[in-house]
């Protein structure tokens, strides 16, 4: 139950009215520079494999972190050995992976009445998780959406008739088709300074883009008489976003958790998304269920969970969304065409490489900058494998 969050933000609003928010750069002590192992992933009981990523967290005080805003912050852990161990002694080993820090453990579908743990060995040091129960998510009841003033809000409803789930977490993957403001039907071949018509295979106005969730989306039915989550918002597509340009798809992945894991994720979320709140809880590190063997107080980030994930995908077509929210024209705001008299076109194209040809009349060629007509700058031409058209 999220008590008073709105209220608190309201009070904070009043205070901020008179108050201010300024950037802050502290000076750190040297003992806060030790690397911290970060373990991310989950044991997928449905198989055929589970993937874990191991990295060391970057100290904020590190010179490179303070010099430039940290963008890639994890330094991957290479040459580690991972093992998923069942309570009965069965163990599955990780294979070496081509991506540094990424480890894949192949295994068949796992028995859901057993308990599992993760063992990590890095250069002679061992980390071990607790044994965890398998949590299999009930099917998602509904992934739906509704229009709000701010945009399109995606929500999830779910229920567990067994009343056994209680703690839910969602991740999602988005994909959408979009087009550029202008369509190019001509190609300028610098090789021979030739102008020709674009073939169907060369068309570049329609692309696909994909993205994944970046927040921690949690809900619990604790305190409700039924184990239901009703229209819990997990994502907001802002109005005029190009996600609402043509066709949009979202795959929602739902998993359920133990109370312990829920507290872990909630605090993780709280710590990084909700601080600065006057009445917020004091930040504290919460320990996951992984510990260093031999030095149990050594900090490790990560919560090993064995889960059966349920999924649901929906599509939103621009025709289904109110005109005021859909975005097709908005992207053209900064785009304009230029008319180049036909005799000058070769000189123009030679000196203005970021301009592309659109189409032509008898006297002039229409040109525009690449960003206004080449969707490949932002997306991919190929539709994702799952993509379904209307």
């Amino acid at each position, binding site marked *: 139950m999220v008590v008073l969050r709105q*209220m608190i933000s309201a009070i904070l609003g009043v205070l901020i009215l008179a108050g201010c928010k300024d950037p802050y750069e502290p000076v750190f002590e040297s003992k806060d*520079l030790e690397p911290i192992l970060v373990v991310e992933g989950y044991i997928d009981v449905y198989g055929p494999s589970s993937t874990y990523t191991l990295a060391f967290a970057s100290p904020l005080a590190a010179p490179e972190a303070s010099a430039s805003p940290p963008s890639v912050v994890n330094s991957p852990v290479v040459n580690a050995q991972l093992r998923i161990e069942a309570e009965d002694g069965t163990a599955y080993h990780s294979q070496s992976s081509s991506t540094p820090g990424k480890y894949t453990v192949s295994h068949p579908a796992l028995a859901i009445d057993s308990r599992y743990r993760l063992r990590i060995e890095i250069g002679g040091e061992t980390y071990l998780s607790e044994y965890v129960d398998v949590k299999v998510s009930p099917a998602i009841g509904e992934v739906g959406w509704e229009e709000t003033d701010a945009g399109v809000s995606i929500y999830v409803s779910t229920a567990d008739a067994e009343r056994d789930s209680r703690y839910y977490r969602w991740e999602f993957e988005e994909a959408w088709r979009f087009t550029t403001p202008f369509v190019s039907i001509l190609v300028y071949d610098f090789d021979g300074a030739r102008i020709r018509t674009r073939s169907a295979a060369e068309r570049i106005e329609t692309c696909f883009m994909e993205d994944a969730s970046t927040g921690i989306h949690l809900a619990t039915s604790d305190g409700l*008489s039924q184990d239901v989550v009703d229209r819990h918002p997990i994502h907001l597509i802002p109005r005029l976003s190009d996600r609402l340009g043509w066709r949009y798809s979202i795959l929602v992945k739902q998993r359920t958790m133990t109370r312990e894991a829920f507290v872990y994720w909630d605090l993780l979320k709280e*710590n990084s998304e909700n601080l600065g*709140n*006057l009445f917020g809880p004091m930040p504290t590190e919460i320990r996951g269920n992984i510990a260093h063997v031999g030095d149990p107080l050594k900090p490790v980030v990560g919560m090993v969970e064995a889960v059966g994930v349920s999924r649901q995908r929906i599509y939103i077509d621009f025709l289904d969304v109110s005109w005021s929210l859909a975005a097709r024209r908005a992207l053209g705001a900064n785009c304009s065409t230029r008319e180049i008299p036909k005799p000058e076109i070769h000189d123009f194209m030679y000196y203005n490489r970021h301009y592309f040809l659109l189409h032509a009349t008898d006297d002039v060629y229409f040109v525009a900058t690449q960003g206004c007509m080449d969707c490949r700058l932002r997306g991919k031409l190929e539709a994702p494998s799952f993509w379904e058209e209307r």
Partner: protein
Amino acid sequence: MTMVSPNRLAIIGLLVAVCLVAHAQRDQVAIELVDAPFESLVAQVERQSAYRFYYDRAQTDGVIVNVPARRWAIDELLKAALSPHRLFYSIDVNKRIFITENYALINTLPSVSIRDTAALREPIPLPPVVGHQQDERAADISIQNRLFEIGSSGAAQSGTKTLSGYIRSTLTGAPVSLASVQVVGHSSAVQADQFGYYSITIPAERSVIRISSVGKKATQRQLLMHASGRLDIQLDDEVYALKEVIVSAEQGSQVRRTQLGVERLSIQTIKQVPVVFGEADVVRVVLTLPGVQTVGEAASGFNVRGGATDQNLVLFNDATVYNPAHFFGFFSAFNPDAISGVELYKGSVPPKFGGRLSSVLDVAAKTGNRNKVSGAGGIGPLTGRLSLDGPIGEKTSFFVAGRSTYSDWLLRLIPDEGYKNSGASFYDANVQLNHEFGDKDALYLTGYISNDRFAFDTTSRYGYENLNLNLKWKRIFSTEAYGMVTVGYDGYRFNVSENLNKVNGYRLDYAIGQTFVRADVNHRLGRRHNLTYGLQAIHYRLTPGNRIPVGERSLIDPAYLAAEQGVESALYVSDSYEVDDRLTLDLGLRYSMFNYLGPRRVDYYAPGLPKSENTIVDTREFGSGQFIKTYHAPEFRLSARYALSPNSSVKAGYNSLRQYIHMLSNTTAITPTDTWKLSDAHIKPQFGDQASLGYYQNFRSNTIETSVELYYKRMHDYLDYKSGAVLLMNERIETDVIDTEARAYGIEFLVKKLSGKLNGWASYTYSRVEQRTVGVNPGDMINRGAYYPSNFDKPHNLTMIGNYKFSHRYSFSLNLTYSTGRPITLPVAVYQYAGSERVYYSDRNQYRIPDFFRADASFNVEGNHKIKKLAHSSWTFGVYNVTGRRNPFSVYYVAEEGRINGYKLSIFGHQIPFVTYNFRF
């Protein structure tokens, strides 16, 4: 010595001149003096006549007299000789000549009966009323020199005598609480109680007592004590005058009082201190005292000498106020017009108080005017207030006050749609009724309510309320003893409604109610012992949380946490023992007991294992009223004072205290939904003790007070919480609690000047408070069980409160505060996790936010001072945070679009001007 303003002197001088004509003409002396000392004049006159001089050598020292040779009428001689030196004389019928500086003594009696009443065992006949024109000043000076005979000389009582009575305001007849009464030239001094009642041992038959209080003109009474008796005293209101020395109750008392770490503030002092939005605020001024800290500007609650916010007992005329804040801490819940003053006990806590570990903030209510109906009010940017008081018949007086807010406009200013439908409001109201039955009995009724409401959008609502009512019966048994019996009810509750129109729409109610009875006796035994003893009992009933579904769609399961009940009782006895003139001992013992009562089902956990649902080994059902758990222990309250001189003393003290009710809070500041929890089968009472040492020195005839106090304090069994613990609606809070102990120490320097054109105080405090977790899993130990700084550990603290009076009507106040930044927990590492950057935090409270500095200024303009004016008004203009410094309240990091950014959040980060208008009639 009180001095009188020049225009008053003229009137007095005239009176003197008139009365002198009557009996000073006939006597003549032959005299000539050339550059002679004053003593020569005295010697010659005394040799030639029966006149005898009475004067203060300090005033006549260096006075050179010149009078030409001739026969002088005595009054002409004195006038000629003395007038160049601003010396005045008066002559009484016994041919005594009194020489005084600046004003003349009135040596005949004006009507006395209307001013003071001496209720004596054997009433003394009042001297005949002399037909003089009445003048208050003259009357006051006269009464100061009049000899009050207590008891009759025929039935003289041997040994020590006690004088007692009420101190009242001349103007309103209302009791002057906390006035100080002192025997001149002697170390004994007492303080009147909140009803203006005093009782003091008079050591010698012939004595002078001096009575003073803030905002009143000090006065004195000449006594001839044949026996113990009663004397009621009236004090004139201080009319602001330029060169006048304002004598306050605070003056000199630090040196004389036996307790350590006691701070007293009158409402006049409180009102001078500029505060945000201009509303005089008790709690904000208390925060400027040495040893008192807060985590931040807008945080309600304060920390005294390293104590937690729930370790302060806030009393309003004996009523416990659980949430003394409005609007989430913007304002204190006490209407400044409804209080007369506050006392903060941060070191020695008298044994009559108990139940909290760190301090007692004793707020005294204002009582009604006994002479006429009067009122007061004020208008500020966010609040308006009005009060009315007056007599009901001869024996009864009333005081009512109300205050409310119109702060919604503030919310409307927020550039966010969500606030359009929001509203915040609060009000508080006070009622005081006093009734006297004869000379010996009085009844006092105190009523208080404060209410806050907040609505966000249309989907969330929040409200809280304090409600207090008590009745006190006071009886004076004799001049040596009086007692009080008080019964009352104190309540606090809040409710939250959220997500209306959704499946998780709910309303949560929390309530705490306590019924108390206490009896206190003050008993003077001989001249060396002053005994106080009493007993008290509090019955608590807590509704720890009821959650009910709200709205048609709601699926919330109604949940009712079992009510908690307990009885806290205590017996105490204390002796203030004056060993000799220099050494005084306060020996106090309080024995407190707490019974946790059924009905309730109690889980018991496997010993030695962490408490959790999985380690429950037994569950027992307790019936109604059955004792589930009993705690009891003695508490010691000891202090000693040794006077090094009349102006300096050293003191030492040791105090131990226990606390049976705890606030559940895991946030830095007090949160609106913080709840209270009784000690139970698992949660032990908090225990704390403190040793302190102090040196006190006054300068310039007690107008400047200085002190140094040193303390060391320990606290055990106070509560911290596991990470991620949910404190609301938690049936098994014991499984989320971490036992914590703390140690605090510090040194406090204070310089105080409470009189003169320039007055105020400055203090510097160095203090530390550290805590550690004990007896839990290594994994749950904060900072691996090592001592770490508490949230309010701010080692250096410098405060200055100053007020300068330019004239009767204009004054300027300045308030400066500096302190070390409070400790915080910073993120020390970043990592990519769950699609975003996350942060890893340092050890708890390992870092500090930048230091805090703030200056506030205000300018007060009083209306004219005609005493007979219909209404008196004043304006206050001020600026809060004059330098506009952006003092960080907190530092935090947020993941914004996949990046971690650090921010400082400052509240009141620029100048905030304010204007308030106050009036009284």
